[in-house]
């Protein structure tokens, strides 16, 4: 499984891009912000697209009673996520190496893919839960308390994916470079599974028995 092993290693290594590039990006544009404000969400924290964007978003959010954008120390996620991704990359490379030398079967590849998918979904769920809390858990003494037409208090949860109009702001929330790298990396590991399967079936039979015995 030489080809598949290499793909598995390559795919997992692409996840390292998450340490350099943002995973997600939220842009807030409004009539008085022709140059929109923006947040880049990294594995280990949130940064403004422009230097003072976070300060300016916080400044605006205080009118509607939202909490300030969390600093890395304020959320356990920003410590745990980098560790999890680091472990997964190491694991992926290890599986790929073992696969390359024929020590483990292709099922390990899809196993890694499955685990990564579960972790990814959990991450997204957590992210969405944070945004829900951020957008709905508002200061009761907020300057502006707005309600929906049905009387329920207005929520300011940014969309997880896509565009939403929130008061005077157009909010656009989309994956960013880091996420694309992760997506491509994971697709490559899935490809490694299929290629590995082909390569495995072409192997001399006895080796297979040997490994199956193990």
């Amino acid at each position, binding site marked *: 499984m030489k080809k598949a092993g290499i793909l598995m290693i390559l795919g997992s290594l692409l996840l390292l891009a998450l340490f350099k590039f943002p995973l997600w990006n939220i842009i807030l544009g409004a009539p008085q912000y022709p*140059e929109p404000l923006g947040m880049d969400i990294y594995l280990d924290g949130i940064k403004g697209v422009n*230097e*003072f964007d976070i*300060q*300016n978003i916080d400044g605006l959010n205080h*009118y509607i009673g939202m909490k300030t954008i969390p600093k890395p120390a304020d959320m356990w996620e920003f410590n745990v996520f980098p560790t999890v991704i680091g472990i997964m990359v190491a694991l992926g490379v290890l599986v790929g190496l073992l696969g390359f030398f024929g020590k483990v079967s292709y099922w390990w590849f899809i196993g890694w893919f499955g685990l990564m998918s579960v972790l990814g979904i959990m991450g997204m769920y957590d992210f969405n839960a944070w945004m829900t809390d951020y957008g709905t858990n508002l200061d009761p003494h907020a300057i*502006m308390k707005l309600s929906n037409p049905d009387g329920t208090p207005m929520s300011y949860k940014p969309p997880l994916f896509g565009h939403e109009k929130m008061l005077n702001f157009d909010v656009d929330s989309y994956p960013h470079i880091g996420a694309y790298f992760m997506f491509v990396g994971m697709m490559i590991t899935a490809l490694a599974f299929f290629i590995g399967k082909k390569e495995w079936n072409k192997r001399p039979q006895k080796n297979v028995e040997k490994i199956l015995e193990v």
Partner: protein
Amino acid sequence: MKIYYSSVLALFSAVIFLTSCGNNNGKSSGGALNSSNAEKVYVAPGEQDEFYAFMSGGYSGNLTVYGLPSGRMFKEIPVFSQFPTSGYGYSEETKPMLETSHGFIPWDDSHHPDISQTNGELDGRWIFINGNNTPRIARISLTTFETVEIIEVPNSAGNHSSSFITENTEYVVAGTRFSVPIPQRDMPIKDYKGNFKGALSFISVDPESGHMDIKFQLMMPGFDYDLSHPGRDKSHGWFFFTTYNTEEANSLLEVNASQNDKDFIAAVNWKKIEEYVNNGGGTKMPANYAHNLYDEDTHMGTTTMKKEVLTVDPLKVPGAVFFLPTPKSPHGCDVDPTGEYIIGNGKLSADLTVHSFTKMIDAIENKKFDGEAYGIPILKFEDVLAGTVKSGGLGPLHTEFDGKGNAYTTFFISSEVVKWKLGSWEVIDRKPTFYSVGHLMIPGGNSRKPFGKYVVALNKITKDRYLPTGPEMEHSAQLYDISGEKMELIYDFPTHGEPHYAAGIPASILAPKSQKIYRLDENKHPYAVLSPDQARVERKGNEVHIYMSTIRSHFTPDNIEGVKVGDKVYFHITNHEQDFDVPHGFAMIGQNSSELLVMPGQTKTSIWEPKQVGVWPFYCTDFCSALHQEMQGYVRVSPASSNIELSWSLGED
């Protein structure tokens, strides 16, 4: 698959059909509109102008910023005049900018802006402008569009042949219009002739910081030095000044200074004098003049009184100064982009006199002199004359160039702009102005590289051009399209104050480097508060210093007690915003001063001397946010004898 392809093809052809339809429509309507002057000046909402135009404010003492071709005004930059709109000249930080040897002066008359150059081309770092009445030169930053330096010019009076810069911004030059006794002394006015002097000041500009310093003053005969321009390209190293009143009359000049058929253009080889000075030449004389510098980190201006100036006697530097006879009291002195032609706009005549730099050098080398004035050689008129423009107009004042071999001259008396050709001196076109035009301006029109698309005529008389506003009206400007052979009047707009000269520059050079905020983390103001928890109130005797911060939409602190009648209260306001275009204002009831307008990251200080017991409010004057109306606070003022301690708070009950 086949179906798929054919539908894609169909879609493509539909798109092509649609776009070609659109093109056809565009062409036909575009053709009809091309001749429309409205379209030429129409800058649609949300679009931006192609050029910045900086117009001097004249008796407003300031500098206004316009867009071309729209004629929209963007900003008034306070320079020599107090400006209550922003607090310039009222705030503690900016009061020093208006200090002079005569004390604090709240006003001046600003005339001739000139943008810094490198290799004779506009570089857009700074713009300089002269204060005419109490002689001063100001430097304005073109990243912040604020006045950052003002230097007083001693031994000068009526600082009019100023502030023109050499082609690498080596010097900003300031010549005196009124000659005066130097040093100033008590003497009979009628003894003017032979006793008064005219100082031409060469002020060096530091290439990095832009800081100005008077390098030397050339002590010329007591004529009136009216206007000037630097040589450029081949004539770089020379400076040319028009003169009038070579009669040296001291009364009823309108008659007595108009007797000589010819006055002079003084040609000054400043490189030669610079060398002389660098080798220890010149005489230091005692003087007293202010040098005011604004520091953009401390947000503070400081005044230094300088006590000495280096003077140069032109007779001590042979070959440095010559007179070129020029008919009829010349006003404007303009040099074409190649540096070859020096144009004397003889304001009492119909014709323009054009001198040749090459001929001038030749005449000097061959010593073709026609006498001298106070020891300064006069060149023979015929030997330096390049040509005469028989304009058919009357009262030529100023000339600008389009970089395509054409010159444009204003005629005050016949109220028109005349386009003529350099070299052949033929008149190509003439268009009326409304009315009595003074200067005119082509962006970069006094540099090696003009942007010859528009010319703005700056008129002295308005009369019926706009809706009447009583006896006093703004001046009028006209915009002409000069991209074709004939000039076309395309727009007419009022200007603020009395623009004399103006300077234009493509927006593409300035707009990208226009600063948006001041960085709070670079604020070195001694009374700044960099975070709201540093906000406090301190007493030093009867001075109360309030260290206050602002952010949408509150002051920190906003309740202050313990101030007493007779105290001198300093409000030091730091704007904590770091967002573009979010200033906060500050105004205190009963304050004998102006408001403050504090830009993001900036600190400004305002003084209030409460005279009455009570609880007095202050508020933000700039509509900063939806909660702007709530941006207010109170100061409790107790009797002088009270022993209430200072206290301050925000958001406490």
